């Protein structure tokens, strides 16, 4: 497996979240979130369901709006200004639990659509980039099929390649392996590990603790909309500080 020490973390700040709060109506989903992500960091966020971890990373590319506090991504603050939002979104790639490929387009069209229409890349160049990333996720031969003809693991790898085609500086993963069969989880994790080794700034919401131990340089544990504990993986797993974390870890690793 990957050697975490080899992967460089620079002191340039990629994401800065300060005093962030979010409500769904009366329900306080995210409470006073403060976190800083340096460029090149690989962060794993875990926690029980309903703890707000998905909501947190969806705030980073403004799929969800926050009501209080400040989120700065790559020097751009997320406000209601659509220009800022579009700028951040084209810099931040996202991979979803249910892949969300576009079923009416071929794999190749899925990959080239955003570069052509958002980045204004010429079609031929976009296709070359797409084929490069498809080879990288090891399915170039599927380029002309439709998403419905691929297995779940292949679809998720296509989804990762689709994000990479936009040449993002930050990647967000929202439970990328939760909807997959056990056999397919590995192929997706391998792709993610490879990405981490190349120095991509990543935030992953996942319960794959093996992945966290292998590549993360920080694990964040959330419960009830708050960051309960964060630490480097070795400390986090071997020596958890809070009782809530201990309970969670005993349940998730206990069997």
């Amino acid at each position: 497996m990957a050697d975490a020490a080899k992967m460089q973390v620079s002191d340039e700040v990629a994401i800065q979240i300060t005093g962030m709060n979010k409500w769904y109506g009366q329900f306080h989903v995210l409470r006073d979130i403060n976190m800083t992500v340096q460029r090149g960091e690989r962060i794993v966020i875990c926690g029980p369901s309903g703890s707000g971890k998905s909501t947190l990373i969806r705030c980073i590319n403004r799929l969800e709006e926050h009501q209080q506090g400040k989120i700065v991504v790559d020097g751009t603050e997320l406000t209601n200004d659509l220009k800022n939002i579009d700028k951040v979104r084209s810099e931040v790639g996202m991979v979803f639990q249910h892949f969300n490929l576009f079923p009416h387009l071929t794999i190749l069209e899925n990959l080239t659509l955003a570069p052509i229409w958002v980045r204004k890349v010429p079609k031929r160049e976009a296709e070359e980039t797409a084929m490069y990333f498809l080879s990288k996720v090891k399915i170039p031969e599927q380029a002309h099929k439709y998403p419905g003809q691929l297995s779940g693991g292949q679809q998720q790898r296509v989804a990762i390649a689709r994000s990479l085609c936009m040449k993002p500086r930050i990647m967000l993963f929202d439970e990328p392996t939760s909807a997959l069969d056990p056999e397919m989880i590995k192929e997706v994790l391998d792709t993610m590990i490879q990405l981490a080794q190349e120095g991509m700034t990543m935030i992953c919401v996942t319960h794959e603790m093996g992945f966290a131990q292998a590549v993360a340089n920080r694990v964040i544990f959330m419960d009830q909309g708050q960051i309960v504990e964060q630490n480097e993986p070795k400390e986090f797993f071997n020596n958890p500080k809070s009782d809530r974390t201990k309970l969670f870890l005993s349940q998730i690793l206990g069997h």
Partner: protein
Amino acid sequence: MDQHFARTEMLPPMTPPITERGAVKWLRENLFSTPFNIALTLFGIAVIYLLVRASLPWWLNSVWNASSLSECRQIVEAAAGTGATGACWAMIREWWGAFIFGFYPPDQWWRPILAFGFLMAALAPVLFSGQTRNLTIVLVVVAVFLALTLWLAGTPGIAFGLAALVVIGMLALAQVQPGKLIWFTLIYPALCFWLLWGGSVWSPIVAMAGFGVLYVVFRQASPFIGLAPAAGAGVLAAVLWWLYLDKALVDVLHGVVPLALQSINSDQFGGFLLAIVIGITGISFSLPIGILLALGRQSDMLIVKTLSVGFIEFIRGVPLITLLFTASLLLQYFLPPGTNFDIILRVIILVTFFAAAYLAEVIRGGLAALPRGQYEAADALGLDYWRAQRLIILPQALKISIPSIVSTFIGLFKDTTLVAFVGLMDPLKGVTQIVRADINWKGIYWEPYIFVGTIFFLICFGMSRYSMYLEKKLKTDHR
């Protein structure tokens, strides 16, 4: 004892027993599976037998050559004995011109025929975009149809030559750059209007130029004042163009190059010409309006949303006939005095609105059926609202809604017969009434309705088959 067993050769497949294959299986499963089904089958056969026994002689005794209904009946009785009945299609022979064209002057029939041929040629690039093979088939059929019918209708040589040039040009273009054919579709509305209503060639050209004005103003203004205000300014400029400049410009241009077709008044339109003009125009304009209304209804902008909802609910809540009466009577009161707003145009506008309101709801259903993830994925890739709609959301939402959209189109086309209520001569009631008022054909009953019904059926069935073809072609989800 040694009980090992290993197969070395696989058994070849056997044919299933007689009860499990072919017609016998089908009959057993579908017609004679239970006592109740057996009873239903026998009952069905009896009903079919009775129907055929009652109507078959009527069809078999059909008469095609006669000059009046009484002559028809004499021929039938002479051939099949006293008291026999028979269909009298001779009426169609005598009146088919009215069924197809209404009171359109016969020496000008080539114009609607040409417009119809061109209609097929204009629809093909939309229906079969970029498929050279299908486009060629359609264009060849159009060429043969036009050559034959235009010759029969006694078309002036110049028109015939020009039409031939256009079709041959399109055929050539279909082989090289089929995508470019869409330009013919874009100029077709003006061309069709000129062919059907006649008048100076400049009026459709100047009217189309209004859209050019809209576009130029929009392009020039959008960098300075933003997209939405620029669109508003463009529309305003175009409206001013149509209201104030249009007529003067047409007069001037017509003075320089007086190229004109004989003017035909709207009250001379009738029959299927009228139904197709209203139906096709309604269909082509109601879809984009319906899409905008559906999107408007989902919008976060309060005014847009309220207006869309109000429009949809009002139009859907009112019978079409009410709207048609509005078109024929009330609209005149609201318009500035002196504006002569053509009755067919008014009816088309309201029929379009009517269909658009239904389409908006149908498309909203399609939009609602899309998983949220599709919107999120489009957003996360940085696509803006209109691109996300055009590239991701609408292609899927429209595909889901194809069956309902086509149902609405078919409904719209059949509803064109309702224009009879505002005095237009639709094929079903308008023309049939005139035929039945003819002293020679007084008392004829089934034949005109069967004739008109058959043509409606063919057109609607065609639409339905096309929609099935489209669904199959667009099926990419492999579920």
